[in-house]
């Protein structure tokens, strides 16, 4: 039984028939990293938000199920669901510049979950925080813990957010495009950091990104998304040697390779777009 099991998850904008997720199914095994790729607007981060229960108010889930370690999240009461998510999952947000509360010091923003939700003692939580900051290679953790977010660089803040995510040893972490907002030089380090920590802590990781280069390096499994529809669910090697779906191939071709940067980028041909759009329409006809 995989740690996270999403089956047939559908969602739309309240009071309209504009569908955002079309029967999405995917699994993440304990200790495994699954990449969730697709162009922006494909609905990939929507899935992460649905799992964590932080969908915007105007969007409603119309069907499907989300099993976290065997518990069905969608039928839990909001309070129970909140506690479960808080205790056993974590989010690595996209933009470190806005994901930290500007009027609170860094320390409490790491330890608050441990003390308030998990009932740790203050001293244990503080010790844990310092330990984590070392792990994310932050020098002088005591100063950083007392500092305010605006005093730190984007890279530093993302390291802190990663530390905060791993603080409670969650079983599942959802990384929502964690490197997109960072400049290129820092992206590689952060990517490496996430990978090493994931391996060391054995946390299941759902990695949402539109950058296939990232996926290649970190993920074992990949789901490709278009218009809220999972068009391909395969392993990393299978994907990079010869993906089954035309859209996945086009996507791969459109991504610059580190190996030969001069290769010209091939835009996704219209025919492929039409084909994948046909799959979406087929789904809509099939499912009322």
């Amino acid at each position, binding site marked *: 039984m995989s740690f996270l099991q999403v089956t047939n998850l559908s969602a739309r904008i309240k009071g309209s028939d504009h569908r955002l997720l079309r029967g999405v199914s995917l699994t993440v095994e304990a200790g495994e990293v699954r990449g969730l790729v697709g162009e922006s607007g494909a609905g990939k981060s929507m899935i992460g938000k649905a799992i*964590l*229960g*932080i969908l915007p*108010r105007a969007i409603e889930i119309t069907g499907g199920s989300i099993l976290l370690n065997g518990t069905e999240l969608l039928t839990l009461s909001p*309070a129970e669901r*909140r*506690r479960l*998510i*808080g*205790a056993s*999952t*974590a*989010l690595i*947000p*996209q*933009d470190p510049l*806005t*994901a*930290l*509360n*500007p*009027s*609170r010091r860094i320390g409490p923003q790491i330890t*608050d*979950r441990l003390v*308030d*939700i998990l009932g740790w003692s203050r001293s244990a939580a503080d010790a844990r925080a310092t330990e984590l900051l070392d792990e994310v290679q932050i020098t002088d953790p005591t100063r950083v813990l007392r500092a*305010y977010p*605006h*005093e730190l660089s984007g890279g530093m803040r993302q390291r802190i*957010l990663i530390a905060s995510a791993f603080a409670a040893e969650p079983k599942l972490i959802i990384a929502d495009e964690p490197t997109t907002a960072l400049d290129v030089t820092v992206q590689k380090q952060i990517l490496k950091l996430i990978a090493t920590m994931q391996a060391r802590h054995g946390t299941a990781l759902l990695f949402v990104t539109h950058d296939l280069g990232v996926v290649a390096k970190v993920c074992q499994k990949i789901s490709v998304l278009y218009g809220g529809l999972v068009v391909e669910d395969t392993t990393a090697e299978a994907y990079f040697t010869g993906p089954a779906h035309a859209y996945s191939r086009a996507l791969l071709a459109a991504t610059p390779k580190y190996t030969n940067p001069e290769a010209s980028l091939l835009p996704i041909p219209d025919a492929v777009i039409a084909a994948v759009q046909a799959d979406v329409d087929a789904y809509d006809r099939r499912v009322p």
Partner: protein
Amino acid sequence: MQLLRAILQRLLTTAITLIGVAVIVFVVVRVVPGNPIAMMLPPGATDEDIARLTAQYGLDKTIPEQFLIWARGVLHGDFGTSITARQPVLDLVLGRLPATLELSLMALVIAVILGGIAALTGTRKRDTLTEAGIDITNGMALSIPDFLWGLLLILAFGVLVPIFHISGRVTPSLELPFTTDFYLVESLVRLRFDLWLDIVSHMFLPALALAIPLAAIIGQLLKQSLKETMHLDYVTLARTKGYGENHVILREALPNAILPTLTLVGVQFTFLIGGTVIIERLFSYEGLGNMAIDAVINRDLPLIQGIVILFAVIFTAVNLVVDLLYAVLNPRLRHG
């Protein structure tokens, strides 16, 4: 060093403001028709009586001359003598100041509480009927001027359901062991809760009348700022940590939503203090405002001047406090 320069610069601007106010009110008050001398003319007075009295009050000199005399006096702490009360203006005005300050601060506390509750509930129940209800009440509170609220409160709690006092500041028959004029504060300091209760029951209705418009403004501004903050990432992150909606609003959103509303509330608070002129008159509350109306009716020029300048000092002080609060509360500036 930079902080010192800022303070000096601030003092300079405040000085200019106060001088400006003094000059303007000095001229306006002298240009106003109905000079005090005519007020004092007895039935049989003759022209030299008029001349003698005018000279006695120094009103025969030109306005610039009078201003210089007055300004020189101010430098020695003498703001002139009140014509009607025949006492130094400074003592009269400082004697009444604590009453107005206490009333204004009590009104501010009520406004912050009411406005805060309205904003937090409005945010918690946003996009529902409750929020629409709160918007309408805020709109209503703003559309009725504070003196009409005063009238309604007198009718409601003074006559129909007489549970609050409707005039004065304290029950005259009580023995007040106070040394300062800050009754409310001193009654607490002396742990005299019986007196404190009596004073509060006198001040509650006028303070409420003053507070309602400000509460509506706080309610609207804070709700607006809170709702904008609720969309930010760190609030969403807090939800993933397992915190409930109320905790998220109070711990994550509120501290950051207060800042933008602070400056506007500061300005509105000065309007509230200005409003005491009518509310104190309505409730016969012996503060600066009440005395101001008598001063204008009787054309007590030195007293009017003293009162307006003291109001100006209060306003500049309030703006100063608001700016300091803004710097202290805003982490970015704190280490600036």
